[in-house]
């Protein structure tokens, strides 16, 4: 271990100790997350060749996992959802139907673009997964997932933020380790050193006259050095990041393997992500949201049902991810890349009176990467959709805490064994979703 690595390691350690984890819930006072057991943290310092860049996607609104990945092998799926159930893959005729992933689960037609990644063994689907907390409040459930600990109103740092805070940078001198493709810092990344919200990486530059840009930028840097944190550190990260991002040709970025990203917000977000990763500038975590999944009415999960709202959203999602798979997962990158995707909760087993579904529990989650043991649908037993097997008589049970999946990825793909910090008060069990 070189002196440089020690220095960088100690820097992260000290910033973690000093950092004020401002509460989001508020009203209960500022609380430092973990002063008592901080000295026991051993900073992860594994070589970058065994560490992946992680791309974290949050599907906000409580996506209906049973539309994304339909349990066609469960007869109660069809009795509970006469209008919305994805038609069986073995249906006769030419109408819309599911695409079988095995003899029990099928992709909806909208998710079909991801079949290539699945059959290549790079895409893992997990089902009946989610949080142990039963909250059906979007805000609470999303918060618990992003902070990586249910039912704790005070913890404010994100699980990915804590991973970054307890591991040395993949590149020592990088000004930017993580970014959220959003207008505000996602809670998942909260607490991460050197992380910024950058909704549009291609436009991250000082405006105004080119002749005075450097002088004005320097003026701002000095001015913000006197500010309180996180304002000061954000500004510094920003100015250091400008030069970094300007070296990347986002506009002229060329994909590999013929990948085409949809010309939508999310599609372009993944395209920018790809360009950032391939530029190999030290960014090691990227978080993006894809929202609008709160389908209480006229859900439209496949063509021909209402206005196909959810079908179209699934197409955008799967096409964007499939492009990323072809371009990045199967492309040439300096390091490996792992994608994880979760949502705050699933939706009811039965459809409601408005051809939609209300807030539920068990849901799908995804992981994608060359070192992900994909090509299967993982469940820790499928609880079944018969009424007696439903939670509160209405919801698919959660039989797999999604943190088990994330924990295995954090340890095996991100090289960080500080799982008790990344997921406090949780004992992970690995389901062999990663390959060595």
């Amino acid at each position: 271990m070189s002196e440089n690595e020690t220095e960088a390691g100690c820097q992260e350690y000290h910033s973690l100790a000093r950092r004020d984890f401002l509460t989001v819930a508020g009203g209960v006072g500022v609380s430092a997350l973990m002063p008592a057991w901080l000295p026991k943290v051993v900073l992860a310092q594994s070589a970058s060749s065994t560490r992946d860049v992680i791309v974290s996607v949050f599907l906000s609104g409580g996506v209906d996992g049973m539309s994304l990945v339909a349990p066609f092998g469960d007869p109660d799926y069809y009795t509970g959802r006469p209008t919305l159930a994805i038609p069986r893959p073995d249906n006769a005729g030419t109408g819309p139907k599911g695409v079988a992933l095995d003899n029990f689960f099928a992709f909806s037609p909208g998710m079909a673009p991801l079949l290539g990644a699945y059959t290549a063994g790079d895409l893992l689907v997990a089902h009946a997964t989610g949080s142990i907390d039963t909250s059906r409040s979007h805000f609470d459930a999303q918060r618990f997932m992003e902070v990586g600990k249910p039912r704790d109103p005070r913890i404010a740092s994100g699980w990915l933020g804590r991973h970054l805070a307890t591991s040395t940078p993949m590149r020592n001198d990088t000004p930017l380790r993580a970014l959220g493709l959003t207008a505000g810092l996602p809670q998942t990344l909260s607490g991460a050193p050197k992380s910024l919200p950058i909704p549009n990486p291609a436009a991250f530059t000082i405006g105004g006259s080119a002749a005075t840009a450097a002088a004005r930028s320097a003026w701002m840097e000095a001015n913000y050095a006197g500010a309180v944190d996180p304002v000061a550190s954000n500004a510094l990260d920003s100015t250091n990041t400008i030069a970094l991002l300007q070296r990347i040709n986002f506009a002229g970025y060329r994909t590999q393997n013929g990948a085409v990203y949809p010309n939508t917000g999310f599609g372009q977000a993944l395209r920018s992500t790809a360009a950032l990763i391939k530029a190999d500038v030290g960014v090691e975590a990227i978080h993006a949201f894809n929202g609008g999944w709160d389908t209480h009415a006229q859900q439209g999960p496949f063509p021909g049902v209402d206005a196909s709202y959810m079908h179209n959203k699934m197409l955008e999602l799967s096409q964007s991810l499939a492009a990323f798979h072809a371009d990045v997962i199967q492309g040439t990158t300096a390091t490996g890349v792992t994608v994880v995707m979760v949502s705050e909760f699933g939706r009811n087993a039965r459809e409601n009176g408005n051809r939609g579904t209300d807030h539920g529990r068990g849901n799908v989650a995804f992981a994608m990467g060359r070192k992900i043991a994909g090509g299967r649908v993982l469940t820790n037993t499928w609880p079944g959709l018969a009424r007696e097997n439903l939670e509160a008589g209405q919801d698919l049970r959660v039989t797999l805490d999604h943190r088990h999946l994330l924990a295995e990825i954090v340890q095996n793909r991100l090289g960080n064994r500080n799982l008790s910090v990344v997921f406090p008060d949780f004992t992970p069990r690995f389901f062999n979703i990663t390959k060595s």
Partner: protein
Amino acid sequence: MAAATMGRAAEAQPPRGRSAPVPAARAQDPARQWGDPVSRLVRRVTMGMTPDDLAAARRLGYAAYLDQQLQPGGFNDSALEAEIATRLPMTTWSLAQLRAQQATDQNELYSQLLDASWYRAAFSKAQLRERMVEFWTDHFTIYLQRVGYLKLVDDREVIRPYALGKFPDLLRATAHSGAMMRYLDQNISTLRSPNQNYAREIMELHTMGSEGGYTQTDVAELSRILTGWGTAADGSFFFNRNNHDRAEKRFLGRTFPAMAATATDAQMKGEGDAAIEMLLAHPSTAQYVSWKMARWLLAYDPPAAVVSASAAAYARTGGDIREMVRTILSSANLMAAPAKYKRPFHLAISSIRALGLDLASVPNIRALRQQSDRTMGMQLFNWEQPNGYPDSVEWWSGLVITRWNFGQSMASLATPTTARLDTMRFRTPDTPEGVVAQVGARLFGGEMPTTLRTNLLTYLRGAAYSDTRVRETLSLALGAQEFQWY
């Protein structure tokens, strides 16, 4: 960390010359730079302090100035409203007119609503009302894309009239807002399949708070109580007895007995009205609403005593928002409160006010507003979820580059037909010292730190004195970290 990173930053700089700034003092709460309670009050009750605001407040004194701002009806905004009616006529249209127009020109309708909101925030004399309009807009968030012109009606007839009124009146008004019924799916709730969205949010977000003491069963029961509440074809509130569940319900410990089919509309709807009164009377509501208001007006982490005092004011006055504000914004509370970080909308409006722009110099605010909306991430009415835009340093402070660039755009305004900054306002006297003194008065209420003054002067003197150089100096002042707090 600070020392090491400062070193790295120094290496990245061009060689130090005349423009090299003096490093600032060790970081401290910006509020420590501020002096007396009056200027702090003006900072908090306005969307951006101007020398006129400060002079008026000093003349009146703390209590009288606050009192004046708590009675928005006492101000004469007729010139502003006349201009808005002329430039943005759709904002005056009736529900029927809006409905007829929205199919053809929906984007123009949205733009006019947004422009009007910016004009009012920037130029209304009732500044505290504007701050509370922003607050209640987030508290009772409605996503414009979901409800269209109904939000224009909601803004005009629900949020603005009651922003400084009684909370019970405001809550009842939102519960009868077609926009709210639509946004939270109450209008598709049926007897057979009651939709729980509004029932949940009216408790979780609008009144009691998620820890307020209701259960999932209460949510379900309230959704049954509220069946029938919805909208008519034109989007306005309408109670439909055919959708109402007449069976017995039990909500927050109270039994609502079953009703006969002969019950009147008023009786059936009355269950919902009664449930709303229960929410208004619940002690958690006084606490939760007080906490949110204290967080908005006073500090991210308001002292429990302040929240309790406001809750007591709620109980004493039947939920009078003015009295709660008065309690929260006492001189003692304000002197003890740390600074808060301006959200993008606040930054933009305070920039407009600090630069001395007015209706005449901003004939068309749209391009300016759209640039802010696109880059700083806070277009009004565009937050999709019911919890409203976040109000935290952690969320907003990362997008600092866009703030600097917005400040640069503001300082460059020079188009008479849309927006024009009159730099002579700052070039009085027309010297570097004169400009920086004006910055101190107009942007910082006379409380500009010495280092900032020095550094602005250094930059201004770093090249030949010109209007361009003056504008660049203004852009630095608008982007400076000192201007991001209030």
